Structures are given as structure tokens and as C-alpha cells.
């Protein structure tokens, strides 16, 4: 059996460098000798790395390592954030090694993967770090050569003094540089001087991915590690009463079975502390298959929960959360949501006099939209490694926002904050799910109980039935139209279980003199969490479908009608606050109009358009569909995006393509049905995810070129996909779609 690659000696590391330098090792598979990107770097003597700012390490033999602070789940911040550093640092990018930073708030200040904020948050700090380090290296050279810094130039990791024909690479200067005081006055390049940012760059860890290296927590191994799985109630609204593990304990490889309480009584939860079930039965054993078999033999008794009221921390304050008892069902939820629509709701915004406008209207069009709970289903099921000893609490975890877990870990594991060490692995998908790190606490509790290193693994069923879903929603849009075909008022009323999605200050607010938005919520014991563009991912579908239908009713082209409204909102904005920049919104619509050849399309083109603004970026899509045997075939999607300066165009296009596919999949197929508290879709053979055949045949992505500071792409392109698809399907089938998943409505005769 081969030795694990992590045990490679320095000598074999040098072998590898000569390998990557061009020589071929005969008789070895390139895979067997290729160390993971990070191991390559750390295979060098750890003491050799010289640190410059918290983000850069350099060895005397000129290896340059740049840290990525933000946990990675597929947006390729592993490449784009270090690109920001290196734009200013100016090392040879082709040789730069990127490394995922550990959980280290003092060093990295912010390690927040979520809200599509990574680009915006890192923009100044990371470039500043790069510039600071470069200035220190230059100063070190200036000191050594006794020349003014102003006479030095830097390129590709080499500092040169042209006048005296001297140069030194970063490696040679690093040690001296690290002894200097970091400058505080750091000037950054002008955008026009960028030589790396804005150029398409390949994923720095691509080789590790295609080779199948150990990148994910699921892959992590540790000496003496045991495997644990947790049994949770089969339904929301149930909790643990008792269990009998007699049979399970007899099974081969099983060490112990016990129960844990995830959060202590009285623990005040913060925003990302959501967990579906607080009491779990844990099975611990030697290997995955053995534990999977043994858990089936544990006899567990569950009892109904009682209604609870908890004070939870909320953004800038706290709120009371009611978690009702009972076994809830989707059919009941729909009835409850319809009922809420008939009752008065909380006023969110009112401009002008919509009541009068509606009473005087020649025509009123009213449409109601709904969407189900969605399960995130990242490809890598939930997992976490923990090894808690007296000396430290060591975690290897996939977690989007590690700093949010600190208080939780301290409180519920009783561990001082400074004893927490967390290695952040690459995540096999997040989509918001892995912002909720309850599994870190669970793994920690298990390790404490068994006094051993342990990897907690959720099976796909455990994961999919574990809540923290995208909420279920309903919203009604109403428009008043007068005798001359003018839209005189818009009314929006909607909510969700357990939270609503109406964003009252977003477009089309500001475009209508008479406007009212109302919202409601229905508490539930079904847990929910942020799902790729929370709120937006539903409300955009309803809003953009309604605008389409409204345009048709008044005889206007749907794309041009949006432009008309935006121009109106720009010229004469209604109300005090409108959360969008009409110019940028217009720009993406005009770009998608041009690139999709919208104006020249045939009259009955099976094509739909939608646009949306959220998480600081603007996105518009035009979708072309055909129906084949009653099933939609997505021929083409043209996307126009404004996310400011694009750091890595290669990654940016990939993100938009992925959002398009994800949007189509969720719009057509996604849905978690609950019956008497039981999630009815338990695995991927029951919960349908879009596959190769169903993806668009062609996706074309265009970016608005401007100089706004970079904003994100993880979420913004996602919400408008749903509406664009629904509008295209209307043209293809004559059927307007109001309730997701759209395929169900399409298939009804």
C-alpha cells in the first residue's frame, strides 16, 4: 500500500518540484506524486516561511504563499481574493501558492462567506496587504543597495534597480523586509493600471480537484479517528424521549451509543445558531458502513414537543421566537397562507393613495404566487471533525462564517475561546446551509463524550430531513389600471412560513405614485435558513412574472416596459427610499436586450426576460425555451450582469452559469413537502435536482464594464432566473405559472 502523500519527505518534495519544472518521473503516476497545493507549500520547512502582513508568507528560496481568508464553497475565492493581494504585491502569479487560512480573526479580520460580500469586503484590505508587503520588500532592497526606494521597480516577484543593474527576488528580501515596520500610508494602483485583476485566471487548486485529493471535511482523516452519526427525530415537532441501543451495541465495530443535547438550556441563540433538533442519539464506531448499519438497530422513542418561546439575537438587537408544537403539513401551510392574504397585514410602505386608485380603476389585475420549502442539498453532506482535549479544541470544519461560531462553541462546549483551533476545509457546496454550524458543536460534544477524535457524518437523509430550509412563501401582486391603460397603483401583500420575502423598498417601488406593501409571518417549527439570495430568490420570481403579465395586459413589450418604469423612477422617484440605482438597473436590461437581439425577435418567440438587484449587483436574463413532449428544453440563456470591476472573469462567468442552472432547477423541480411534520423528500432519488439533460444548451454571459468597486456574484444572478423562465414558459405554452415548482403546474392538464 502506498504511503499517504502527506508523509512525503522534503527530498521527495524536491523531486516534485523538478517534476513540475518539466522533468517527467518515469514509472510514477503524476497523481501519486502530486502533493495537494497546500501540502506542497508546507512540505518545505515550516520555519522557513517569513510572514509579511497576515496574508503573505515567503521563503528564502522564493516561494510565495498568499492566504485566502474566506472559506471556499465554489465561488473560487481561493483564486480571486489572492489575486487582489497579488495585484499589489506583484509576485509571479503563475508560481504563487494559495492556501486556505485557518480560522483566525485577529489575522484575517473577516472570514465571511455569505451575502455575496467577499469581493467587496476584501477589495481594499487585501490590496492594501499586498501593497504593504511590496513596499516592505522594496524598502529592504533600498536599504541593502543604499538607493532611494523611488528608483526601484517591481515585476514578477523581482525588485530591480535599473540604474545600477541590481535585482533581487522576494525570497532574498523577505527576511530583511519582515524586520521593518509596516508602512501606514499605502497607495493602491489605479484600476487602469491593473495587470492581474480583470484577467481570466484558472482555479489555483484545479489540479487537486480533478485528482480527487483530500480537500473536504468528508475526506479528512486523523489518527485514531472514530466515525459518528446522529439520529434525529423523523418529524419536526418531535423530540427525543428515550432509546434502546442493546442490539446496536452488539454490532461489529460499534463503540458507543448515547444522546447529546446540542445547546444548553438557557443558551441565547444568535442568527446562525439555528438547529432543527436539540436532542440527538449518537452512534459511534470504527467505520462508516458499520455505523450506518448499527444506527438502524437503535430503537428510539420520540415524543411531541411543546410550544417554546425563546429570545434570540437578531440583527442589531433581539427578538422573540415562537416555535409552535404540532405536526405541520404543506397542505395546511398553503391554507394558512391563503388565509393570511385575506386578513390585514403589517404595513411596510405606502406611497400616495393606493386605495383610491384601486377604487377608481377601470381594471384591476391580481395574481398570487407561491413557492415551497427548498432544501439546500449541497453535494457534500454535512460533516465535521472534532478533537477536544484539555489543551485545545481542534476542529476541521466546513463552515461559511467561522467567527459566528465562537460564542456558540464557548458556551455549549465550555471551552475558552483562545483554545479553539479550526482548520477550514473546502466545502462541497454551501448555498447558505453551511452558515449554520450546529454540527460543529455536535461534533465537539461527541468528542468530549468519547474522549477521542471523531468525524460526525450526516447521511444524505440526515441532511435533507434536517430542516434549515428556504421558507415557503406566498405573495399577491395587484395593479390598478385606468381607462387610458395607465397603471395607477401597485399593491404587494405577502409573507411566508416562518418569515416573509417582501422587500418593500426595491423596484418597482419608486416608479409608482401609489404603492403599498404589506407583510405577514406565520410561526412554524420547521427551521429555515438563508438560501442563496434569501427572500429575493422568491420575491423576484413573483415580481418579475407579474411585471410581465402587467405589460401584456396594457399592451407593452415586457422588457421595454421595465425600462420605461426604471426611467420614470430615475426621473421622478417616488418615496424617500428606493434600494436600487436605476441607471445600473437600466444598463443590465439594455445590455441583455442588445445581446439577446430582443427587439428583432419573432412575435411568438418562446422567450422571457427578468431582471433583479440584490446583494449589491444587478442581473438580467433572457431565456429561450422549447417544449418537447410536454417538457421544457432550455435552448439558450443570455445574461447581463453588473457587479462592478470583475476580479477574475473566468470565475465570474462560471458563477453566472451556475446560478442560471441552479435557478432553472429550483424553479422547475425544487420542493420539500412536509406531511405531519415529516419531510417527504429524503434523498436525491426523491428530491429532484437539475441534471445534464435539463441544463440550458447554451449560456452567454455579458458584463457591464464600469469602474464601480467589485460586488458579488454568488447570489445576484440567481433570483431573476425564475421569472425569466416562467415568462418564457408562458410564451411557449400559453400558460402563466404561479406556483413553484413550475413543472408540477406545467404537467397539470
Amino acid at each position: 500500500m502506498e504511503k499517504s502523500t502527506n508523509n512525503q519527505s522534503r527530498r521527495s518534495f524536491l523531486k516534485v518540484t523538478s517534476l513540475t519544472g518539466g522533468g517527467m518521473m518515469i514509472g510514477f503516476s503524476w497523481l501519486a506524486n502530486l502533493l495537494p497545493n497546500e501540502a506542497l507549500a508546507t512540505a518545505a520547512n515550516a520555519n522557513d516561511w517569513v510572514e509579511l502582513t497576515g496574508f503573505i508568507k515567503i521563503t528564502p528560496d522564493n516561494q510565495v504563499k498568499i492566504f485566502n481568508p474566506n472559506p471556499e464553497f465554489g465561488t473560487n475565492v481561493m483564486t480571486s481574493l489572492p489575486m487582489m493581494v497579488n495585484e499589489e504585491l506583484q509576485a509571479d502569479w503563475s508560481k504563487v501558492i494559495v492556501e486556505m487560512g485557518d480560522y483566525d480573526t485577529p489575522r484575517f479580520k473577516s472570514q465571511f462567506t455569505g451575502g455575496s460580500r467577499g469581493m467587496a469586503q476584501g477589495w481594499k484590505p487585501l490590496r492594501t496587504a499586498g501593497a504593504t508587503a511590496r513596499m516592505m520588500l522594496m524598502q529592504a532592497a533600498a536599504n541593502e543597495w543604499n538607493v532611494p526606494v523611488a528608483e526601484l521597480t517591481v515585476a514578477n516577484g523581482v525588485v530591480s534597480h535599473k540604474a545600477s543593474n541590481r535585482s533581487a527576488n522576494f525570497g532574498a528580501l523577505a527576511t530583511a523586509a519582515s524586520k521593518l515596520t509596516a508602512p501606514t500610508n499605502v497607495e493602491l494602483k489605479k484600476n487602469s493600471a491593473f495587470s492581474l485583476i480583470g484577467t481570466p485566471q484558472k482555479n489555483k487548486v484545479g489540479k487537486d480537484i480533478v485528482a480527487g485529493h483530500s480537500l473536504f471535511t468528508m475526506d479528512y482523516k486523523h489518527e485514531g479517528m472514530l466515525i459518528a452519526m446522529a439520529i434525529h427525530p423523523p418529524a419536526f415537532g418531535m423530540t427525543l424521549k428515550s432509546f434502546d441501543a442493546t442490539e446496536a451495541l452488539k454490532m461489529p465495530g460499534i463503540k458507543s451509543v448515547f444522546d447529546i443535547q446540542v445547546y444548553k438550556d438557557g443558551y441565547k441563540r444568535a442568527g446562525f445558531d439555528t438547529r432543527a433538533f436539540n436532542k440527538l442519539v449518537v452512534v459511534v464506531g470504527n467505520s462508516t458502513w458499520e455505523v450506518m448499519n448499527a444506527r438502524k438497530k437503535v430503537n428510539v422513542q420520540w415524543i411531541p414537543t411543546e410550544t417554546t418561546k425563546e429570545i434570540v439575537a437578531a440583527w442589531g438587537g433581539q427578538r422573540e421566537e415562537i416555535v409552535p408544537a404540532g405536526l405541520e403539513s404543506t397542505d395546511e401551510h398553503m391554507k394558512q397562507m391563503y388565509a393570511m392574504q385575506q386578513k390585514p397585514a403589517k404595513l411596510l410602505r405606502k406611497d400616495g393613495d393606493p386605495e383610491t386608485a384601486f377604487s377608481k380603476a377601470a381594471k384591476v389585475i391580481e395574481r398570487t404566487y407561491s413557492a415551497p420549502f427548498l432544501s439546500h442539498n449541497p453535494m457534500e453532506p454535512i460533516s465535521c471533525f472534532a478533537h477536544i482535549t484539555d489543551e485545545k479544541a481542534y476542529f476541521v470544519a466546513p463552515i461559511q462564517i467561522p467567527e459566528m461560531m465562537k460564542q456558540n462553541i464557548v458556551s455549549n462546549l465550555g471551552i475558552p475561546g483562545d483554545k479553539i483551533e479550526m482548520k477550514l476545509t473546502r466545502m462541497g457546496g454551501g448555498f447558505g446551509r453551511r452558515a449554520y454550524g450546529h454540527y460543529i458543536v455536535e461534533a465537539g460534544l461527541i468528542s468530549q463524550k468519547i474522549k477521542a477524535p471523531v468525524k460526525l457524518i450526516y447521511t444524505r437523509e440526515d441532511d435533507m430531513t434536517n430542516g434549515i430550509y428556504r421558507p415557503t412563501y406566498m405573495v399577491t401582486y395587484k395593479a390598478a389600471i385606468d381607462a387610458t391603460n395607465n397603471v395607477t397603483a401597485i399593491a404587494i401583500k405577502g409573507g411566508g412560513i416562518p418569515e416573509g420575502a417582501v422587500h418593500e423598498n426595491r423596484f418597482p417601488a419608486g416608479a409608482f405614485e401609489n404603492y403599498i406593501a404589506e407583510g405577514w409571518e406565520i410561526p412554524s417549527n420547521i427551521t429555515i435558513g438563508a438560501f442563496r439570495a434569501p427572500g429575493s430568490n422568491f420575491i423576484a420570481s413573483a415580481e418579475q412574472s407579474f411585471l410581465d403579465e402587467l405589460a401584456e395586459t396594457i399592451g407593452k413589450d415586457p422588457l421595454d416596459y421595465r425600462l420605461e418604469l426604471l426611467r420614470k423612477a430615475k426621473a421622478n422617484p417616488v418615496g424617500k427610499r428606493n434600494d436600487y440605482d436605476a441607471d445600473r438597473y437600466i444598463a443590465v436590461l439594455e445590455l441583455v436586450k442588445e445581446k439577446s437581439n430582443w427587439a428583432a425577435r419573432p412575435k411568438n418567440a418562446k422567450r422571457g426576460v427578468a431582471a433583479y438587484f440584490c446583494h449589491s449587483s444587478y442581473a438580467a436574463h433572457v431565456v429561450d425555451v422549447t417544449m418537447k413532449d410536454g417538457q421544457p428544453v432550455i435552448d439558450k440563456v443570455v445574461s447581463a450582469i453588473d457587479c462592478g470591476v470583475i476580479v477574475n472573469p473566468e470565475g465570474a462567468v462560471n458563477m453566472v452559469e451556475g446560478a442560471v442552472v441552479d435557478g432553472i432547477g429550483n424553479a422547475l423541480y425544487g420542493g420539500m413537502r412536509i406531511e405531519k411534520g415529516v419531510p417527504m423528500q429524503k434523498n436525491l432519488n426523491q428530491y429532484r435536482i437539475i441534471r445534464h439533460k435539463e441544463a440550458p444548451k447554451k449560456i452567454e454571459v455579458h458584463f457591464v464594464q464600469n469602474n464601480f468597486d467589485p460586488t458579488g456574484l454568488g447570489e445576484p444572478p440567481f433570483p431573476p432566473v425564475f421569472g425569466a423562465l416562467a415568462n418564457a414558459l408562458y410564451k411557449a405554452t400559453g400558460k402563466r405559472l404561479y406556483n413553484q415548482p413550475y413543472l408540477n403546474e406545467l404537467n397539470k392538464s
Partner: protein
Amino acid sequence: MKKAILFISLGMMALASQSFKQANSSSLSNGKNVYETYCMSCHMDNGTGVPGAFPSLVKTGNLADKNRLVKIILQGVRGPINVKETKYDGEMASISLSDKETADVINYIRNSWGNKAPMITVPEVAAAKKAVVKGYQAY
């Protein structure tokens, strides 16, 4: 007159037969798509399966009962079962297919690789599903 009626009714039969063939070939080609997505990776693209792990679907004599096939797709199946004198004691997970997809894939399997069987229809599948699970309702 009689000749004309005979001619017309023959023509109608030819038309009906042609649209019947079209419906059949559409079901088979759709069924092939479903098979390739959900079944092929275990039962293999030629239906032969993996001996000892995933049963063959080729001329096994096990495909005659369409209600049983609907049930297997809808609910999965657990061994031990015997297929062509080989014992299989594994588990096939259920697959969420629409009534049409179920009909199409059953038609494809039962008419491929030398298998031959009458085509089943979507209403037959819907009825079979209801018989299997009381009050069955897709999402």
C-alpha cells in the same frame, strides 16, 4: 358504397396504427432517456446489470407483472430475490418518476435487448401506483 366504407375504415386503421407507432416510439425514446439517467449506472446500458450486485433485465422472465414493476420504481425493492437462478440480497432505492416517466421506462426496458412486451399506458401506471400506496400524491 360498401367498398368506400371499407376503404375509409382501412385508411382510419392505417392512420390509427401510425399514430400508435409514433406514440410507442416516443414512449420508447423517452423511456431510454429515463433509463440512462436513473437506471443505467447499475443495470448497465445493455441491461445486463452486475452479477451478484444488480440484477439483469434481459430476458429474465421477471418483467411480466407491470404492477410489480411500478411498485419497484415507486417504493424500491429489498432482497432476497432470485433472478435467473442468481440470488440478490441488496436494496434498490425508490426513484421519484412521474406517471409518464414510469410508463416510458417500463416500456423501454420491456422492449429492449430482446425483451418484448405490450406497451403500458400512463393511466395504467397511475392506477397501479394508487393500488400500491393508498392516497398516493406526488409533490
